[in-house]
């Protein structure tokens, strides 16, 4: 029963998301736009960290930061789909009244959100990484670090979305609530790519992020379910 509820919610949310092209394509386009604008804000001759140093090095460091920030911002984009749309048309209340445990509903929604607005982004990372002159090894580690750490982002964004579920137009607050909390995942994720760039072992930060992801995925939905109940009771 709980697992069946999870699958049903997942299928329903995926269906709803793929009915409208903008649902899954906008975060991707946003990600590309952010990646394109960062180099414009920084003049190319300033990319060398020190006189005489290679500009490629600065471009690579910038690329890692841009890809991580882009992923962060893109995962904030589709968050209305998590709970707000369902709360507005009343289906969220029906889901909460249903005999299925709320936790499995939450897991279904998290999985759908991750698949729609985060996974395509990870697939796009090699392309953006290439444009920032990242080495293939570093790009692979960067994609892997995003794959491991994005569940943390999804859970934290969902906590923000659940806390503000019955506040109209309060999505700006979610950024303030969520961004300080994602800093550990950001630190280890970017660190892994930098280590791979220097041809060193990136295992330690990846393990850290994996442990953060396990913690977020196992404890986060409890907080999300509590926040939904508190917001809608």
């Amino acid at each position: 029963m709980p697992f069946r509820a999870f699958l049903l919610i997942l299928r329903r949310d995926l269906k709803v998301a793929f009915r409208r092209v903008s649902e899954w394509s906008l975060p991707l386009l946003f990600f590309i736009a952010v990646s394109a604008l960062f180099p414009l804000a920084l003049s190319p001759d300033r990319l060398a960290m020190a006189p005489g140093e290679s500009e490629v090095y600065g471009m690579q460091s910038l690329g890692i930061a841009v890809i991580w920030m882009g992923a962060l911002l893109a995962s904030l984009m589709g968050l209305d789909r998590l709970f707000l749309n369902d709360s507005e048309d009343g289906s969220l209340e029906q889901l909460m009244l249903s005999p299925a445990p709320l936790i499995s509903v939450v897991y279904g929604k998290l999985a759908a959100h991750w698949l729609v607005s985060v996974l395509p982004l990870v697939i796009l990372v090699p392309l953006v990484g290439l444009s920032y002159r990242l080495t293939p090894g570093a790009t692979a580690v960067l994609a892997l670090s995003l794959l491991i750490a994005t569940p943390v982002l999804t859970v934290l964004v969902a906590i923000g979305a659940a806390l503000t579920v019955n506040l109209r137009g309060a999505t700006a607050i979610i950024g303030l609530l969520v961004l300080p909390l994602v800093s550990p995942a950001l630190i280890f994720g970017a660190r892994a790519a930098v280590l791979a760039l220097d041809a060193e072992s990136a295992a330690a930060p990846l393990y850290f992020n994996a442990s953060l992801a396990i913690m977020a995925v196992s404890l986060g939905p409890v907080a999300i379910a509590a926040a939904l109940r508190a917001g809608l009771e």
Partner: protein
Amino acid sequence: MKLPVWFHRFGSPPWVYGFAGACAPWLLAAGLLAIAVGAYWGLVIAPPDARQGEVYRIIYIHPQTAYVGMMAYTLMAIAAAIGFIWRIKLAHAVAVSAAPIGATFTFGALITGAIWGRPTWGTYWEWGDPRIMSELLLLLMFLGYLALRAAFDDRDKADRVSAILAVVGVVNVPIIHFSVEWWNSLHQTASIMQLDKPAMPASMLVPFLIMVAGFTLLFYGLLLRRLQAGIVDRESGARWLRDLAPGATP
């Protein structure tokens, strides 16, 4: 477990209002006195540091503000959790009272740190320093908590929802703290934070501890004053409040 008989009084707004009103002046007076004594002792009597000279005297203000800020967040989260689990409104009132004070002290820690950083590190702000980063993130978490509360019209809902945020935040505070610290220790370009501390001599330690006590007492005094104001706000129109102020119109 059987609760002692006096314990239930902490759930009663009139009793807590009176209790806070009785304690706050003493806490505030003792805190200000300790700060005055500690400041004079630390800034005038204590000897200058062998390596940092006079600049080191920021330790009579800066660590205290940082410590009170972190204590305030922990207290806020514990109170919010108690309020959420046992549905005690006064616990929520304590959590709300702690937030602005904690944010102010955290902001004070950032400012005093910047003032010390300029002559010592040569810069007001160093993005690479883990302590600055975790203090800044703590400040943002305080402000996020306050912003979330402010967005709700319904206070009961604000209490319950912001309590969840406080608990999620307090779980994250140590993770953020240590990850930021590891982040820097992995980087370690310039070791500006290598203050390998030898044991502080008593002539410096005593005023340091007096200042810690003073800031702590001041925090709790302010907390109780804010709590009183919060109770008046929550209980406005209640009979016992009207009895307290006979002339006032409700």
